[in-house]
C-alpha cells in the first residue's frame, strides 16, 4: 500500500460522503457547505494528479465563485432558508436509477484495459504552453474568444434577469 493510495482513499471517501450529504441534508445551507467540502476534496485529487493549476482553478472558480453564488442565492430566497423546504420526492426510484447507472459505469471501467501508471512525469512548465495554446490560431483561439463572448452574455443576461425594476 502506497501513501498516495491511502491519501486517495481517504479523500475519495470524504468526497463521496460530502456529495451524498449535498443531495440529502435537510437544510439547504448545510447542503451548500457540504458542496464546498466535496469541491475541496476534488482539488486535493487534482493535486494527487499533479495538476496544481487545476486545483487552484477549482478553488478559485468553483469554491470562490460558484459556491459563493449558490450560498447567496440560498440566502436571498427565504423559502430555501427554512428547515424543510427541501422536499425529496420519489427518492427510492431515483436511488435505484443512480445506483444502477453507477454499477454500469464501474463495470465498464473495470472491464477496460486502462493504464495503471501515468506516462512520463509532468514537466513544470506546461502552464505557459497552455497559455500560448489559448491564443494560438492553430490551438484554442476560437474557444478562448467564444468564452469571452459567453461571459459577456452571462454578465448582461444575469444582470438583466436580476435588475431592480
Amino acid at each position, binding site marked *: 500500500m502506497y501513501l*498516495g*493510495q491511502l491519501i486517495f482513499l481517504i479523500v*475519495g471517501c470524504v*468526497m*463521496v460522503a460530502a*456529495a451524498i450529504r*449535498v*443531495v440529502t441534508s435537510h437544510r*439547504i445551507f448545510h*447542503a451548500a457547505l457540504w*458542496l464546498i467540502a466535496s*469541491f475541496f476534496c*476534488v482539488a486535493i*485529487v*487534482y493535486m*494527487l*494528479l*499533479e*495538476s496544481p*493549476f*487545476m486545483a487552484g*482553478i477549482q478553488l478559485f472558480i*468553483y469554491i470562490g*465563485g*460558484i459556491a459563493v*453564488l*449558490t450560498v447567496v*442565492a440560498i440566502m436571498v*430566497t427565504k*423559502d*430555501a432558508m427554512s428547515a424543510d*423546504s*427541501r422536499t*425529496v420526492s*420519489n*427518492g427510492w426510484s*431515483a*436511488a435505484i*436509477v*443512480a445506483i444502477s*447507472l453507477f454499477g454500469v*459505469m464501474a463495470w465498464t471501467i*473495470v472491464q*477496460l484495459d*486502462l*493504464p495503471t*501508471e*501515468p*506516462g*512520463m512525469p509532468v514537466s513544470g512548465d*506546461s502552464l505557459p*504552453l*497552455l497559455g500560448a*495554446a*489559448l491564443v494560438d490560431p492553430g490551438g*484554442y483561439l476560437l474557444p478562448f474568444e467564444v468564452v469571452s463572448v*459567453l461571459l459577456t452574455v*452571462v454578465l448582461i443576461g*444575469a444582470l438583466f*434577469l436580476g435588475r431592480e425594476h
Partner: protein
Amino acid sequence: MITGIPLSWFLILGAALFCIGVFGVLANRNLIVIMMSVELMLNAVVLNLVAFARFMEPARITGKAFAIIVYATAAAEAALGLALTVAIWRTENTVTIEEIDLLQG
C-alpha cells in the same frame, strides 16, 4: 506522489460523483439543490478529463484546455441558472419546481 494509483480509481471516483449528482437531480424538487447537483456532475466530468490528461498524454495540454473551457461553461451555467432561480423566486415566491407554472397561461 501519484505512484500506485491506477487510472481506474479516478474514473470510479468520478462515476460515483456523477451518479450522486444524478440522484440529486432526480430526487429533489428544489431548484437550488438541483443546480448544486448539476455542479457535482460537471465536476465529475472535469475530474475525468484531468485524470485522462495526466495518464494518457502528460506532455500535451489538450486535457487542461478542455477542462478550463468546461469550467467556464459550468460557471456560466451556474450564474444564469441561479439568476433565473432568483428571478423566479421574486415573481412566483417559490423555488419548488412543481409549483413553478410560468408557462401556463
